[in-house]
């Protein structure tokens, strides 16, 4: 009876933790199977322990090449989408103008569109214009779908900013450029950082849009996709695990930094 009552009282917490487990489980499996020594081409069944893949993560042909390409594309897509998106966000948050509703719709639509539809239509355009698929078509596509996410993140931050801070700066004889660089930009920075981080993650991980617009260029997600048919090397699990750890460390570091800043 006591057990039942305890269960009932903590039902929500237990269910929440269960869902968290469901979310984390594949990451654990990826970690464990990065130490596997598979029999044959596929790494789906546990055979025996080995750290070979960790010792030689680039040991598979084309794997690290595709990883580097994905990193480069994600970097440039982040730069492009963040610059263009931040400009749009400032225009939307700061100015009243006639085209505003139309612009808002145009920003919202890419986020509310199935990726397959965007991917196929953009590829149709490239095909008919005779543009060769490759690095540039991927980059163009990635900037296109990351843009809306940056706008949303930055806009939210700029909208919640107190306009009196900028007025105060001007009262203290700051020039418009000084006001922007020393007041506006630092306040908007967390929003811009969030948008940039999201762009990087979305671009690095995108498969559907890249699959349609890459031609024979192979990014990391496309390498993983191909390997699902040919046989997955253990190195893929190594890289998946490393990405997870780097992400967790970055977020933890950011938390610590902002926590310390808040205290001081």
């Amino acid at each position: 009876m006591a057990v039942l009552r305890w269960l009932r009282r903590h039902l929500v917490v237990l269910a929440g933790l269960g869902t968290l487990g469901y979310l984390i489980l594949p990451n654990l499996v990826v970690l464990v199977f990065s130490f596997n020594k598979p029999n044959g081409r596929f790494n789906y069944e546990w055979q025996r322990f080995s750290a070979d893949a960790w010792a030689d993560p680039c040991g598979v042909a084309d794997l690290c090449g595709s990883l580097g390409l994905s990193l480069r594309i994600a970097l440039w897509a982040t730069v492009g989408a963040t610059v263009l998106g931040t400009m749009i966000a400032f225009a939307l948050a700061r100015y009243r103008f006639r085209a505003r509703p139309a612009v808002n719709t145009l920003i919202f639509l890419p986020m509310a569109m199935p990726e397959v539809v965007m991917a196929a239509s953009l590829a149709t355009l490239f095909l008919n214009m005779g543009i060769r698929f490759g690095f540039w078509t991927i980059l163009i596509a990635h900037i296109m779908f990351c843009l809306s996410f940056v706008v949303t993140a930055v806009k939210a931050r700029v909208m919640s900013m107190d306009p009196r801070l900028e007025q105060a700066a001007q009262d203290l004889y700051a020039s418009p450029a000084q006001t922007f660089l020393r007041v506006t930009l630092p306040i908007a920075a967390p929003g811009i950082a969030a948008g940039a981080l999201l762009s990087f993650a979305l671009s690095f991980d995108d498969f559907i849009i890249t699959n349609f617009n890459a031609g024979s260029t192979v990014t990391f997600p496309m390498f993983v996709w191909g390997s699902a048919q040919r046989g997955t090397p253990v190195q893929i699990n190594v890289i998946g695990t490393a990405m997870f750890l780097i992400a967790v460390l970055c977020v933890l570091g950011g938390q610590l930094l902002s926590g310390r800043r808040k205290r001081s």
Partner: protein
Amino acid sequence: MTTTTEAPPPAAEDAPQVRARGARKRLVPYWLLLPGILWLVVFFAAPLVYQASTSVQTGSLEEGFKVTWHFAAYWDALGAYWPQFLRSVGYAATATVLCLVLGYPLAYLIAFKAGRWRNVVMILVIAPFFTSFLIRTLAWKTILADGGPVVGVLNSLHVLDVTSWLGLTEGQRVLATPLAVVCGLTYNFLPFMVLPLYTSLERIDPRLHEAAGDLYARPVTTFRRVTFPLSMPGVVAGTLLTFIPAAGDYINAELLGSTDQKMIGNVIQSQFLRVLDYPTAAALSFILMAAILAMVTLYIRKSGTEDLV
């Protein structure tokens, strides 16, 4: 003293210049918008229009395609692929409901119960975003493997007998069945449900819960009459963020399903990239887009929340 007086009041001959400066200032937002909006118009909006024209073309890759206003592509596509359409909507709807059922307790946990663990739980929800989701989806192949522990447990509890009878699984296996695909979809889109739910739950004033308790509402009643209605914006946003990408997805069906679980995304992908039948692919993606827009509009009307973005 609020503003600096940079110049004496403008004399009559200065007026046009001032007006010119005002006009230039009015153009500032447009200059800010120009590059980004141009990008979206050229690489997002124009392709959609272009695709609409492709869907009414006929021809072949060798002879070239011509616009013939041949609407038959739509009827042919619907006639040939309506099972995949229905399946996509069915799988996506099931996955969305499962995401809501699984995601709500987690969002509730982060918003109200986690205390000083809140940031840790948040990181654990977001971190999978930064790992390649294809790798994680492939991990489900290991988890659900025939003869693996999950299938073993489900089997000894006779769960698989029931799901097999319901048509969700086949025999003693989970992989290559609808259950596996829905499981993968639910997993992949769960964070998109949890985050908006959390955002709207976090905004709820905890004093409202206390007030409900003071008025002798039982916890279930408090949830039904106070918490859930106030979290509606999150529910609506989360549902859309899960349903729309899930309906167009082809990765889960490809990696975890078999040819019997093909969704409409798989058809578009193979028509476009393998068969090279662009008009059919265009017609299919246009139907998908129209269907989703119609469903979303209806859903937003029904749920009565309009401030989504």
